[in-house]
């Protein structure tokens, strides 16, 4: 593939690690883990979760919590990219990933229907008006393509990949891309039923890991063409250089044991970026802390990059935020590449002899021009993004 990189001109995030990027980096540096019991709804499931502690007010619950989180991250990213004061010369696209916001899963509404009542259709209206891409595009008056990606846990990563394809196809001049998801009763019950939730704070890649913790949040990038960013006078050193995706075609929930799908996705992303594996300074791994994910992912990373590759998982700070994970981790990866350091892989203590790589156990300086972020998902989806920090601005 011979398409150009996209410039990252804005980033926004909200999660249990912080209400914006500055707070998040402070949590990473501390390091501070904000895991606790579920407070958003009643549940008998006693596993730690990563809730956003103080989301913005939502008067009369007229929008979903997912959309609330998405809008908060979008505002931060759009402000940083100065899209209002210096609008791009062409259409703006919106591509956001989610898992919760695309389902009509209001339990109270359904319970009333099931009981033969005719409940208020307000939850239906909230759902119909809550499609993340459609809602954010309407907020901003964005006039380019729009898509909500529902690719389970790789949704955010795939949404950013779609944005890169749109830019390279000339469909728009800039894209707001990422993912958002709220902590919700349905996936909490579902992941609990699958037996992959940890009763303690998660420990990605650790020998004694016992599963994942769910979280919530949103992570959003503003991406634009190099020429467009330069014309607007935006910094151009931070870039999205490649995206790869491949399917396992194996199982609905389990990763293919040989990891060939993830490896293919990584190699496609590297090829689009035009770099060799040795050019990658660090990998922000999917690292959910489930037995299967970490074993397969660790094997693939060792195979592609070697056992000494610098790796972390940020899910020890955010929990697994499902459709938001790819967006959040894209923001974290790009921000770390620019800052020149990555945090400790929270929760990791003991190396697993079955996994050829080990994440960093302390804050670590990183040197290099490229970094990788990976995502694996239900349905056998695998996705990877390559980020670049170039030495010079575009002229």
């Amino acid at each position, binding site marked *: 593939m011979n398409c150009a990189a996209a410039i990252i001109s804005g980033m926004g995030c909200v999660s249990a690690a912080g209400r914006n990027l500055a707070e998040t980096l402070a949590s990473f540096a501390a390091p501070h883990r904000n895991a606790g019991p579920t407070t958003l709804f009643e549940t008998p499931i006693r596993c730690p979760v990563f809730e956003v502690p103080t989301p913005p007010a939502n008067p009369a619950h007229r929008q979903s919590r997912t959309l609330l989180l998405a809008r908060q991250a979008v505002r931060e990213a759009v402000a940083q990219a100065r899209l209002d004061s210096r609008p791009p010369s062409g259409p703006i696209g919106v591509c956001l990933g989610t898992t919760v916001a695309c389902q009509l899963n209001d339990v109270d509404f359904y319970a009333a229907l099931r009981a033969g009542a005719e409940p208020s259709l307000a939850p239906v209206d909230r759902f119909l008006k809550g499609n993340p891409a459609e809602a954010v595009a309407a907020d901003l008056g964005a006039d380019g*393509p729009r898509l909500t990606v529902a690719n389970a846990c790789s949704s955010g990563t*795939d949404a950013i990949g779609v944005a890169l394809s749109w830019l390279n196809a000339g469909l728009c001049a800039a894209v707001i891309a990422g993912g958002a998801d709220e902590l919700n009763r349905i996936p909490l019950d579902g992941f609990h039923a699958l*037996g992959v939730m940890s009763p303690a704070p998660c420990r990605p890649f650790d020998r004694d890991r016992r599963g994942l913790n769910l979280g919530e949040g949103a992570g959003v990038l503003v991406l634009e063409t190099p020429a467009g960013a330069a014309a607007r006078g935006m910094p151009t050193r931070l870039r999205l250089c490649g995206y790869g995706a491949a399917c396992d075609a194996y199982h609905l*929930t389990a990763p293919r044991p040989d990891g060939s799908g993830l490896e293919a996705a990584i190699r496609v992303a590297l090829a689009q970026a035009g770099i060799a594996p040795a050019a990658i300074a660090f990998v922000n791994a999917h690292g959910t802390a489930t037995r299967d994910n970490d074993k397969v992912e660790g094997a693939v990373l060792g195979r592609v990059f070697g056992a000494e590759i610098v790796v972390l998982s940020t899910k020890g700070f955010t929990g697994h935020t499902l459709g938001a994970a790819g967006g959040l981790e894209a923001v974290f990866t790009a921000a770390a590449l620019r800052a020149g350091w990555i945090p400790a892989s929270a929760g990791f203590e003991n190396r697993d002899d079955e996994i050829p790589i080990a994440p960093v156990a302390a804050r670590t300086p990183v040197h290099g021009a490229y970094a990788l972020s990976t995502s694996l998902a*239900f349905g056998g*989806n695998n996705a990877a993004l390559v980020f670049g920090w170039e030495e010079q601005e575009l002229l």
Partner: protein
Amino acid sequence: MNIHGIGVVFARGRGVPALERALAEGWQPPAAGAPRLSYAVPPEALADRAAAPGLRRADRFSRLATLAAWDALRADGAPELAPARVGAIVATAFGPHVTTFKFLDDILSFGDAAVSPTTFSHSVHNAAAAYIAAALGLRGPTLTVTQFAFAFHEALRLAAAWIGEGRCDAVLVGAADEMGGVLARIAARKLRVAADGKIRPFAFAPSPATVPGEGAAFLLLSPAPSGAGFGRIADVTVGAGPRERPRPATLRSGAECRRAAPSVARRPPSCCAPSASSPPPSPTKRPAWRSAGRRRPRGSSGWFVQNGIASRGRE
């Protein structure tokens, strides 16, 4: 993009012959026994011994989508394709909502800590795409997109972009949605459903009546020459609704990707394109508003979608 295969599952059956037969026979009311008044896919259209091993546990939504995708990929004349070079994009508005409500039934009946993991894994929107990839052995990018307006058309444009940037040699693009009891009850309250089951297009007064339905349709798209006789998609234009700002977007204008995608060419906005053997039109006929960075004049083309799904070239 040339159309190499078409798969369709709808209220009158499965496959292109069923579609052609339905068109020839004309309108028939929805079958009795469907959830409320809706065009439901008959059970026999979802029974398939060849595809059944891969669909043993699939719910209705995944089955609808997978059978349509199966037919599109295995159509007569479809090219031999490397599995890693074939992408799949599934567009849906509501996803597998019947399974979602079944999962809610689990919660309400048995409690949060005693639900079915199988039901949960089938309730995610991309379960159908996973079944498609597994049943057909596809190893390329697989994406599920969801929204209430133009999801399929945006999927078509993304497929063109994937092919244009060399990500795929071919892409299965389709749309699927199912009908269920809950959605039927919501539709009955939110929509003016035609009592006789007949949709009357463009009958706007007093307000347009509709009838819910379900089905799936897939196209196998590739720039390679096609002998299937299904024609090609010349252009996809997604417009703006009357209350929205216009949403102009060209199918492609990035120089690098334009060079890489010779099969996607601008055509006049007619619905039907000739077969793949016709020479592509000159790109110099591109309207001025389609140039990169230019916006289409407000209201210049309304809000209809010209999706260019072709008539069969041999006819």
